[in-house]
């Protein structure tokens, strides 16, 4: 529900108008929501760790399918998108609308590259014999990375929506916080990926 585009105008923050914490409602809500998301991914990661070893010796396992160099590159791409997201936030805060659009586009593009990489990876794994229903590793792997991919995709949709708003002139510096809040989500999704990448790919067995 991040589409709850906050619309604080600067004068809202002037004078007497304060929230009790000083954070806007929208930003606080995003932090609270991300707290909940931690447990969602915590549950999925635990499920993966619980299940990854529970396959037979002849089953398709992590070592049979993982292509670490490829995933490292796509992880790096996703990591870079966090950097560009930072630029997007700082540019709109300065009032640099053009720069903001460029960085939003770049972030979305990097995110899309990551998702495309994931789609490619899934296809490759499937052709190597690891389907969602093949074994416990397959079910747990696709569920975990699939949920993460869905989160990235939703992030891309939000970034594109921001871009459309910006094109239509609805995203000025007064809405810098909107970009910042979506940035929070984006950074969270990236950090979660670092955890997933480490646990799933770097310690596969």
């Amino acid at each position, binding site marked *: 529900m991040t589409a709850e585009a906050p619309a604080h105008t600067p004068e809202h923050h002037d004078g007497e108008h304060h929230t009790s914490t000083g954070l806007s409602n929208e930003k606080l809500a995003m932090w609270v929501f991300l707290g909940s998301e931690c447990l969602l991914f915590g549950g999925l990661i635990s499920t993966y760790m619980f299940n990854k070893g*529970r*396959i*037979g*010796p*002849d089953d398709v396992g992590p070592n049979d399918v993982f292509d670490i160099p490829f995933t490292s590159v796509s992880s790096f791409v996703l990591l870079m998108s966090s950097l560009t997201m930072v630029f997007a936030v700082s540019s709109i805060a300065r009032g640099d609308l053009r720069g903001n659009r460029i960085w939003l586009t770049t972030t979305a593009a990097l995110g899309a590259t990551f998702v495309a990489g994931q789609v490619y990876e899934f296809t490759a794994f499937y052709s190597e014999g690891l389907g969602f229903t093949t074994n416990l590793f397959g079910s747990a792997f696709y569920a975990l990375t699939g949920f993460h991919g869905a989160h990235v995709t939703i992030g891309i949709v939000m970034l594109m929506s921001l871009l459309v708003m910006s094109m239509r002139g609805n995203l000025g510096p007064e809405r810098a916080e909107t970009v910042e809040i979506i940035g929070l989500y984006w950074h969270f999704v990236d950090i979660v990926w670092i955890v997933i990448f480490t646990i799933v790919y770097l310690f596969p067995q």
Partner: protein
Amino acid sequence: MSGRARGLVWLSSLLVIAGTIALIVVAIVVDKDHPLSTLSPVGRQGRDIAELINPIFIVAGVVFFLVQGAVLALWWRYRVAGSETGDGEYGYYDDDEFPDQTHGNNRLEIAWTIVPTVLLAVISVFTLVALFALDDVKASDEDITVTVIGQQWWWEYQYHLDGDTDTPPDFVTANELVIPVGVDVALDIKSRDVIHSFWIPKLNGKRDAVPGRSHDWVIQSEEPGRFRGQCTEFCGLSHGYMKMVAVALPTAEFHQWKNNQMTPAEAPAEGTPEGEGWATFSQQCASCHVVNGLTSAANRGGAADSPPDDWDIYGEHNGGSAGPVLTTELVAGAAPNLTHLMTRGTFAGSAFDLYLNAGDHIPYLDLAEAGTLNRGELEAWISNAPERKPADADDLRGMPARTGLSPTDIDNVVAFLSTLD
């Protein structure tokens, strides 16, 4: 409300409370003779548990009376009457009606945090000691180990008289677990389908039968007797009808029983009702039920007198894969071993008595001879089991109806079954 009416309300509510408490006390003290009661344990483990919990029940009872007494005392002492309608500006109270406005007392708070903490710490020490003692099941790793297998909705017992569960069992029986008195019998609890829980309340607490897992447990009885049990983990449609019995026999009788169990059945003579019954049985029943010595190898994929090949339900001794060999077909293919059906007091997951007069006064080993067969129930079961005990035979769970059998067929089958002693 007048003072008199108020008094009556007080009196009646006190009477209700006192009456309830009295009833509960009477029920617990007097009403002990229940076949599944946890309050009158006979097994060593059950007694250990009772010894642990009974003092705690008393402590809890004391706290109960203290708190409820405090509530009643405060009610009695500090209640105020008047202003019943409460319609004034000051609610139910007069404007100057104030007790001391105490806000709290830190010492008191700390005291009533620490006192229960200490009390619970003491209890937890006793708990941990008992817990690890009860869990020390290696003490019982002597002779007999029984693999207990839960399946919708009955129990299978595979006896390993040498305690070695890696080899095929010496014999297989169902629903009634017979143990020698005074001996810790190790149980290896498994499941073929969903989660069940094995529980003989008078002997020990329960332990879940989880598919894919093998749980060690132990039971022992200090005295001979028959002890009821009930599957206590919800296991689907007929969970309520999934019962079992533990029978503790003196050692000599146990050996007699054991030797009988290892004897295969003999084929009845052709042309007799028993022979006809066997013919029907082998067509209608033998694809699931085993009768050692009779049911053919083709039915089970092994020698006729060999143990069922699904004793090794996880395939772990079979060089199998990691998973158990749990398939839809297996669930259907496994049913109680009937080789010595007539030696058991109950059938159909111990949901029904096999003998009408099977009270404790007939010695267990004499059931087949001295018991009056519960013929009506048995016939009803054979002809339409799901009607007697809900089953989902279409989905291969539980015994399907055999409504195609004529009354004569059923009589013959019962006659055949009666030979299985």
